[in-house]
């Protein structure tokens, strides 16, 4: 999307109608930027803008106040048109202290608006932020290509709440609502919903309710004043489909998708997990839903977690384990057992920056090859990936469906960017979601544990407690015809090929690869997977608006790859594969289809910016 920014507007009292904007709130961990962002998001949603958000937490739990690494941010992109990412560079940057300014200013869009809380620009904070001199005074901001609103928000907040009798410390905490009030005014948002929220949130503290509301209103009133009035915008409704919406985050959607799978399959679920960033919230979220038949086990480590999940599957539940890269590495020996015993298992890998401990709070897509190949012996599993926060819900259901139908481990790949990102989400009609069929073996007649469905090649699932079906399974090779241990050479080859054929067969049970944007043949296909969906889609659309013959396809099924993918790729002169890794999907497609796909890697712990993709695509097409 393109937004006309303040600088390009002629200043008039009436609101400037703009397509949309990208706003970033940045402040100290203690400044409540996440709350501000959430409230601002809710308002945009109610105004029926399309939007996407992304929080940016510091790596430290609670960094000392005022430090550079203690800065917490929240970015929102809202628009009257479809929105696919939280946006590249902010049109408006709100910096609540010097450190926030230092770490974020470089991102402000040319011609953008900078709002700073001048009240925090004292010697100590400036020093902590590494400023020799005060940037608000040393002239470094004069005609620096953006508009500056330097306001002593701290002072104005204290003034606005003085009658509530709060301690200065508490009073000072209200400054995020003062700021919110100002931003509400700038974008013409009603204050009521946030006032309601404040009343609910601080119900037990009347003084806090009064203070925060007072601050909110004061900030709003301040907007009215002359020097701000020409920064007033209106972002019309977006043409989004009718229906009921809610905001949903990636990890939340993943957890809720698993709950959905319980209801759709009628099975109970066991999540075995060990805390790890950025996966822990899946455990936290699911632990609230015991009444959905979900047992969450916080195991002693990742190995115990996956083993407990496999044990639960063996006993007839949906066994799920959630973790991130290093945890996945630890689970692989056990995943091999699930492959060999052919038990359903859902592995959720919320990828983060690697290798090793790497960049725990940053995003990356570098676990794909680990998921596909990272086990001893020939141990094929299914691998799928979610494309957006909301998509996590549906892919989690899909992971469970495949695991049960094919009696195999299924990896669901998401990443830190999806996990913490959020978007408005059309609430599905549960009654319309397809059921997941489960057939436990009951009949002793002719039973053995590795009897297979000739169609899917899945073995029958006979669970403890079933009379007449007692049997033993394990990780040693099994006889195709009896399920007993077998060291027979031909049998081993037959079983290995069968396990491989079973996974390969999934390709016939999943949608063909479709084109997201553009034609299904042409000069260039941009092939993506996972969380890069929004950036690629938007970048390709922009290139097409510029008349370039480029299309976008986004792979959700990574192993096996969609049955028509090879043929699709061959219909394009060139294939470009942008990934947040050093080139992984590109290896899979080159090896499988022998197409000269080209890698476009980014390994910075951050998502692609639309602009950089657009630029690369143009370069590629010119080269």
């Amino acid at each position, binding site marked *: 999307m393109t937004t006309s920014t303040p600088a390009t507007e002629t200043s008039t009292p009436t609101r400037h109608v703009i397509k949309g904007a990208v706003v970033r709130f940045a402040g100290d961990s203690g400044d409540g930027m996440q709350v501000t962002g959430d409230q601002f998001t809710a308002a945009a949603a109610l105004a029926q803008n399309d939007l996407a958000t992304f929080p940016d937490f510091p790596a430290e739990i609670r960094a000392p106040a005022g430090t550079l690494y203690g800065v917490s941010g929240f970015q929102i992109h809202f628009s009257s048109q479809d929105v696919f990412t939280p946006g590249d560079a902010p049109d408006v940057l709100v910096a609540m202290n010097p450190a926030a300014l230092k770490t974020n200013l470089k991102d402000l869009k040319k011609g953008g608006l900078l709002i700073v809380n001048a009240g925090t620009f004292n010697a100590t904070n400036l020093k902590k932020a590494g400023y020799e001199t005060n940037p608000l005074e040393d002239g470094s901001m004069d005609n620096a290509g953006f508009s500056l609103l330097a306001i002593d928000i701290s002072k104005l907040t204290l003034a606005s709440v003085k009658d509530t009798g709060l301690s200065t410390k508490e009073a000072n905490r209200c400054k995020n609502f003062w700021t919110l009030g100002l931003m509400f005014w700038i974008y013409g948002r009603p204050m009521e919903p946030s006032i309601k929220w404040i009343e609910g949130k601080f119900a037990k503290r009347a003084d806090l309710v009064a203070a925060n509301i007072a601050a909110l209103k004061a900030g709003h009133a301040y907007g009215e004043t002359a020097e701000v009035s020409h920064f007033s915008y209106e972002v019309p409704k977006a043409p989004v489909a009718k229906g009921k919406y809610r*905001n949903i985050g990636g990890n939340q959607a993943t957890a809720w998708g698993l709950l959905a799978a319980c209801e759709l399959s009628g099975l109970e679920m066991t999540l075995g997990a060990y805390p790890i960033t950025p996966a822990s919230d899946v455990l936290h979220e699911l632990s609230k839903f015991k009444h959905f038949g979900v047992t969450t086990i916080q195991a002693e480590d990742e190995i115990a977690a996956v083993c407990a999940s496999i044990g639960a599957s063996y006993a007839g539940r949906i066994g799920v384990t959630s973790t991130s890269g290093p945890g996945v590495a630890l689970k692989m020996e056990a995943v091999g057992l699930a492959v060999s015993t052919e038990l359903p298992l859902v592995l959720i890998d919320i990828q983060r920056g690697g290798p090793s401990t790497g960049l725990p709070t940053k995003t990356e897509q570098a676990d794909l090859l680990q998921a596909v190949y990272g086990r001893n012996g020939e141990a094929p599993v299914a691998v799928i990936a979610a494309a957006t926060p909301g998509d996590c819900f549906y892919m989690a259901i899909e992971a469970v469906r495949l695991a049960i139908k094919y009696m195999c481990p299924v990896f669901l790949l998401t990443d830190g960017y999806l996990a913490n990102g959020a978007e408005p989400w059309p609430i599905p009609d549960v009654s319309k979601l397809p059921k997941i069929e489960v057939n436990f073996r009951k009949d002793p007649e002719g039973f053995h544990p590795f009897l297979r469905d000739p169609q899917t090649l899945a073995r029958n699932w006979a669970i403890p407690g079933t009379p007449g079906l007692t049997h033993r399974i394990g990780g040693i090779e099994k006889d195709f015809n009896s399920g007993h241990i077998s060291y027979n050479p031909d049998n081993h080859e037959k079983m290995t090929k069968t396990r491989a054929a079973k996974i390969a067969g999934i390709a016939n049970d999943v949608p063909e690869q479709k084109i997201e944007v553009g034609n299904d043949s042409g000069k260039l296909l941009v092939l993506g997977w996972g969380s890069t969906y929004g950036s690629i889609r938007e970048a390709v659309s922009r290139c097409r608006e510029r008349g370039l013959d480029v299309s976008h396809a986004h792979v959700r099924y990574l192993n096996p790859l969609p049955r028509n993918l090879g043929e699709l790729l061959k219909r394009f002169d060139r294939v470009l594969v942008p990934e947040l890794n050093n080139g992984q999907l590109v290896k899979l497609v080159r090896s499988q289809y022998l197409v000269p796909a080209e890698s476009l890697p980014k390994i910075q712990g951050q998502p692609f910016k639309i602009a950089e993709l657009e630029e690369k695509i143009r370069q590629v097409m010119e080269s």
Partner: protein
Amino acid sequence: MSNIIEPSKLTKKDFETDQDVRWCPGCGDYAILATVQRVMPELGVPLEQMVWVSGIGCSSRFPYYMNTYGFHTIHGRAPAFAMGIKTANPSLSVWMATGDGDGLSIGGNHLMHCLRRNLDIKILMFNNRIYGLTKGQYSPTSELGKVTKSTPGGSADQPVDPAAFALGVNGSFVARSIDTEAQHLSEVLRRAAKHKGTAFMEVYQNCNVFNDGAFDSFREKDVRAERQVRVEHGKPLLFGTNNDKGLRINPKTLQLEVIQLGENGMTLADVLVHDETNSTLAFMLARMPYPHFPVALGVLFAEERPTYDGVVADQQAAAVQKLGKGSLSKLLNSGSTWEI
């Protein structure tokens, strides 16, 4: 693979499988298997309600020979699998077979957490003080200086005592027995079956190929009486061919000592009475230095405590009680939503 018999009618045969047992001729595992198969029918548990879980090792082959549900998993992880199985279906009777390597070397952590959580499963640890399946390397229970294929100069590791380990991590039931002592082992198995919580049983097992005779010095008929003390709750800790030796706590050193009844004024009254609810006593008995002291066999410690699976089940029930069975569409439509 099996057909349906009602519990009361079960016999030893019903617990045997059609697989030929592939342990070395003369292995202590055979005796343990036979005793277990003999005791199981007494428990009144239907075949299909019983699950045997194991890791990897000669001992961990055990499930293949029990005609119940069985899961031969991966090395050292059996307790974690058992955790998933038991919490998924608490009505199952879950038993675990492991070895000193499987359970205490690679699997020590899972065993520790299983014990402290008090998951309601029964654990048989076959302690032959050696790695059998991999052909004879020393294990965490092998004595210091043990000469094996991997330690030609003798091992540098101080061993760990399985029972003391179990007590140290707060295990709720800790017992010891011997492969060849069918009766004693049977009694221990019955007690374990009755215990609600993790029942840890260490069974001294002879590996006649790689560590033959490891326990002969207190296992053989002729030395048994002098070298073993059979502990029984409420009974004095007596042993010896004439049952005239006893254990007592030296009031000064607060350490255990062996006393000879009749000698320097010692009488039955001086002999310590076993109290299986006293974890300190159990700890002392588990760690008595051999051969200076006899080897303590039997139920060293037993205490009823909430089980992990029990608490989990209760929380589940309470949640449904409180919130009703979860509804997805309610959930999806909860919180702040908006119509367009």
